[in-house]
């Protein structure tokens, strides 16, 4: 038996595979297909303080080996989440992470403040990087000062560990990662979607109602891998890799690059069993290669 557990310092995961926010609903949607107890953890859909409608359709466009979305973070808000969803999730023996959103800094803090009292939440993932909420993909993760400011405020409010999810739509991802670390984040997750677009040549209109959207899926994987490689060499907090992971092989690339864990996103849409299959494939790789502990693989890039 391989020991697949990984220790983030503030949180021990039974394996390095988490389901990514925005691709896993509130977790319950996957109950018919997988045993959620098998996951390292899962991150529920981004929560604002109040319920939100999201963007008008079309919200999705498929691109070459990728998925372009402008969903716009619809959701039920913290109150309904606490009352209706959370009680159904507490039975699971896995890390439950809540993705926290805000239109302004104080809204992030209000979400965390509201959820602090709730049992069963392992950590918060701070979503300062969604490209589909403000015009032209603006978000706090685009510059080091605004990232620092919101992380600092939320860290002060939060009674639980904080993972900060960064945007790839920056010139220097390391600079933003360092400012999140300086502000006190316990971990960094890399990355949210890439600001992108698609055009219908017949109508000459954008294919998304929102014009711009966020690209995910295998198309982005090599770029994210590069970002993880760059960031882990500069920061001390654990890094979680997210970007186009479809298989155990893909996940292992991130671990070898130095990520302590990974989040599986778009793959959940293609196959709701993806997370569990990826865990099995990682285990099979370890067994084949005589690896007793998955942590022995992390950061072992020979370069």
């Amino acid at each position, binding site marked *: 038996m391989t020991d697949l557990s990984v220790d983030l310092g503030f949180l021990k995961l039974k394996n390095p595979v988490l389901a990514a926010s925005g691709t896993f609903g509130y977790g319950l949607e996957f109950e018919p297909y997988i045993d959620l107890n098998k996951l390292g953890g899962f991150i529920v859909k981004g929560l604002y303080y109040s319920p939100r*409608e999201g963007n*008008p*359709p079309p919200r999705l466009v498929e691109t070459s080996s990728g998925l372009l*979305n402008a969903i716009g973070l619809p959701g039920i808000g913290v109150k309904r989440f606490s009352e209706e969803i959370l009680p159904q999730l507490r039975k699971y023996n896995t890390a439950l992470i809540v993705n926290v959103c805000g239109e302004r800094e104080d809204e992030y803090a209000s979400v965390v403040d509201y959820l602090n009292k709730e049992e069963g939440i392992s950590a918060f993932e701070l979503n300062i990087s969604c490209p589909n909420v403000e015009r032209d993909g603006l978000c706090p993760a685009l510059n080091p000062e605004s990232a620092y400011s919101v992380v600092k405020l939320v860290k002060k409010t939060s009674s639980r560990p904080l993972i900060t999810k960064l945007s790839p739509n920056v010139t220097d991802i390391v600079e933003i990662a360092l400012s999140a670390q300086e502000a006190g984040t316990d971990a960094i997750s890399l990355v949210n979607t890439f600001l992108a677009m698609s055009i219908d040549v017949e109508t000459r209109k954008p294919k998304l109602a929102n014009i711009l959207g966020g690209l995910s899926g295998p198309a982005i994987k090599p770029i994210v891998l590069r970002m993880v490689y760059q960031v882990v060499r500069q920061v001390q907090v654990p890094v979680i890799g997210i970007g186009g992971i479809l298989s155990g092989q893909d996940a292992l690339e991130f671990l070898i690059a130095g990520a302590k864990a990974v989040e599986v996103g778009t793959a959940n*849409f293609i196959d709701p069993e993806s997370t569990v299959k990826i865990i099995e494939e990682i285990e099979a790789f370890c067994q084949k290669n005589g690896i007793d502990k998955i942590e022995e693989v992390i950061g072992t890039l020979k370069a």
Partner: protein
Amino acid sequence: MIKDPQARIIHKESWRDYYLFSLESPRIAHQAHPGQFIMVRVTSEPYPLLRRPLSIHSKDGNHIEIFFQITGLGTSQLSKKATDDTLDILGPLGKGFNIIPDLEGKEVVLVGGGRGIAPLYFLAHQLRSLKSSVKIFYGGKTLEDLPLKEKLETNGFETYCSSDDGSFGFKGLVSELLKAELERLAPACIFACGPEPMMRKIAEIARTKNIRAEFSLESVMGCGFGACWGCVKRIRKGDEEEWLKVCEEGPVFSGEEIIWQEEEK
């Protein structure tokens, strides 16, 4: 909601760009209800990435049928699958049509536009088992867009065909044919599936005549089971309007609920 990674294609038929597959998938077949759909993975490669949503066209014992038209890369790749190939499918998904008991013995009208006939064939069989008198309106651009007309007739359904160019049946839109026939028919309910402009016209006719109507909507879907929030349409619930997921809350909605695209601001 079952994942069947090995649904075998046991029969395949095709007409121009329309395809009919019969799939062996016992567990999904046993649970299937008219108006529900499956998500089909067309390749194990990463492109095209997403599954494709397709209505369940019929069920018989351990088998379900899907009827689809090539509309892009996904359906094009799917059309190339052969008998004895297996498909990875999820289903049955969505809520389907409301077949309320008071339709028993009543006259019911089904209206299919082009590939929109797909879910109605399954519904027609179910309604017939309730001893409803089923009239099927089937419209397309030309004769070639009506590939199932023989199948409907062979199965004993009273069928009214239309083609935009007059190459078969009534010349004009199926909604115009329906409007003319409603001078004579008095259905307890209309069920429709097809292009949105067609369904919008039928919703208007049903509203004017005060006939209950349900529509099966088509949408691009990311997952098909409520996780991505990608497939929404504008739906009226009481005094409120919301973007509701077609996969989970639909794909069937009533005429009063749907806020058709042209109505949107």
